[in-house]
């Protein structure tokens, strides 16, 4: 049972799993010393982290802004208290008052219990940054979770899910372990399906040299989100694009960003740049994946270590451009059910992708109803940062973590008659919401946004 002293914890990667992502787990008797060494390194490197450690006045504004706290009512899930799990150690070892006055100033000695606390609580935080949006000091508590998870990774403590994804990326080039023949088979199947359903003859080119556009789909689309892949394929065919999907990096996500922002994240970036160079493309277009889009848009430029000559855009920015320039004929009546939009946190708060989603939405559906709050005040789906754990204890926690979102969906009225659509244009959001809309009985189907575009396209 994945609990430690009454704390829920995700199933963790074994020593063997960790070796596959190049980490030899630190033995217990060395963990505390190593954790301090890594914390020291991190604090010297990241001012954003030190700001969080030094500036918080515990005003509590973040508490009611965190869906994890709202859903669990566990005080350690209040963002400032979650940060305190690391701050108390930071104080004890790296501040004068903490060294002298210890517990009196909230400092605490490091122990294995503290490290286990980190593992429990930094993997209940979904790195959604709503607390950062609400902090009067502008403290980004997500940066603390980043540091906590990075230290845990170096110690050899990573959820099995995240470690398996990291290993799959390195071995196969995507998160779901999908080898090229499987990828091609799925795309051929989808092309046949498209011909049957839409009467459109098209193909999904894979590894086609001298393509103009390199499309990076989420690999989850190949298993679960059929209309997301179909929608993208239909869009590129409609505009007559010379496009291709690279088999060595058929992955819009980058789990490295979520647990190891060094080797694992960089490795994924290098694969992408190699693919773009080898296929001679002119532009890279990103598929529906929230954290992956943040990792791409905000991190590739500084992680690349070499010039990146290709513009990197999001498919919804592309679609919005074609809508705004009247190059796309869409028939919204093809999507006649009421639709509400879940703004993925990483699009809305980290990548300025808000208005274009609405441009695309309004052109593609008849009855669009905004959720409140939305855009940069969106609440997370509860699965953010890949906390999609499905063992019984953690699954129950996911239901609690999605309770706030469920309340907001219900308030829109979409799904009241059991016939609505919840648009969630991100793979993690989709994977979280597919079961959660059932658990909360929301009466909605979960769809991507490009899914709706694909259905609404009017072909000559």
């Amino acid at each position, binding site marked *: 049972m994945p609990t430690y002293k009454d704390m829920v914890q995700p199933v963790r990667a074994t020593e063997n799993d960790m070796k596959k992502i190049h980490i030899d787990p630190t033995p217990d008797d060395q963990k505390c010393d190593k954790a301090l060494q890594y914390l020291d390194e991190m604090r010297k490197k990241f001012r954003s982290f030190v700001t969080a450690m030094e500036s918080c006045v515990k005003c509590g504004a973040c508490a009611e802004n965190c869906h994890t706290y709202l859903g669990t009512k566990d005080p350690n899930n209040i963002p400032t208290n979650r940060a305190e799990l690391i701050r108390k150690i930071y104080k004890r070892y790296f501040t004068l008052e903490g060294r002298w006055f210890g517990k009196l100033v909230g400092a605490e000695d490091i122990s294995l219990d503290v490290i286990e606390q980190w593992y429990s609580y930094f993997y209940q935080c979904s790195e959604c940054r709503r607390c950062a949006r609400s902090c009067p000091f502008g403290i980004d508590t997500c940066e603390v979770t980043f540091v906590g998870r990075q230290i845990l990774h170096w110690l050899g403590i990573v959820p099995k899910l995240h470690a398996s*994804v990291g290993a799959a990326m390195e071995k196969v080039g995507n998160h779901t372990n999908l*080898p090229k023949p*499987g990828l091609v088979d799925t795309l051929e*199947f989808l092309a046949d399906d498209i011909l049957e359903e839409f009467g459109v003859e098209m193909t999904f080119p894979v590894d086609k040299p001298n393509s103009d556009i390199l499309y990076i789909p989420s690999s989850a689309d190949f*298993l679960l989100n*059929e209309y997301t892949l179909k929608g993208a394929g239909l869009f590129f065919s409609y505009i007559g694009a010379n496009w291709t999907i690279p088999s060595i990096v058929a992955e819009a996500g980058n789990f490295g960003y979520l647990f190891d922002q060094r080797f694992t994240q960089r490795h994924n970036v290098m694969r992408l740049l190699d693919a773009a160079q080898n296929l001679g493309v002119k532009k890279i277009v990103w598929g529906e994946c929230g954290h992956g889009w943040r990792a791409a848009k905000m991190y590739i430029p500084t992680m690349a270590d070499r010039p990146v000559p290709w513009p990197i855009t999001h498919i919804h920015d592309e679609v919005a451009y074609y809508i705004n320039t009247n190059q796309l004929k869409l028939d919204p009546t093809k999507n006649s059910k009421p639709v509400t939009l879940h703004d993925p946190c990483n699009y809305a708060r980290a990548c300025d992708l808000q208005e274009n989603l609405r441009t695309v939405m309004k052109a593609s559906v008849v009855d669009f109803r905004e959720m409140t709050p939305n855009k940069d005040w969106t609440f997370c789906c509860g699965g953010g940062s*890949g906390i*999609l754990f499905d063992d019984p204890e953690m699954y129950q926690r996911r239901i609690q973590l999605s309770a706030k979102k469920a309340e907001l969906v219900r308030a829109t009225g979409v799904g009241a008659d059991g016939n609505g659509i919840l648009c969630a244009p991100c793979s993690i959001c989709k994977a979280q919401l597919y079961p959660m809309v059932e658990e909360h009985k929301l009466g909605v189907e979960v769809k991507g946004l490009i899914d709706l575009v694909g259905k609404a396209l009017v072909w000559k």
Partner: protein
Amino acid sequence: MASININGREVELDEDGFMVDPEQWTDDCAIYFAPGEGINELTEDHWKVIRYLRDYYKQFQIAPMIRKLCKETGCSLKYIYELFPTGPAKGSCKLAGLPKPTGCV
């Protein structure tokens, strides 16, 4: 990692209770896993889905897209959930001896 005994054969399972080596799979494994996934009795339709998953995995080393699974077996997604209450990714893959699907699924 744990090892269990299914009808006199040692079968290795991972932390999530999925088979480590799909090659070790026999019909007995599916029968053994069924109650744990909320299935009382394996019907012909269960076996149809399991066999399709195994064939596909043998060819492509991955589970098929759910849409493809539905189309090729003639089972609607709703019916697949009735057959495998814990879902196609978790329940049917476990019964068929496939590795646990990973990533955002």
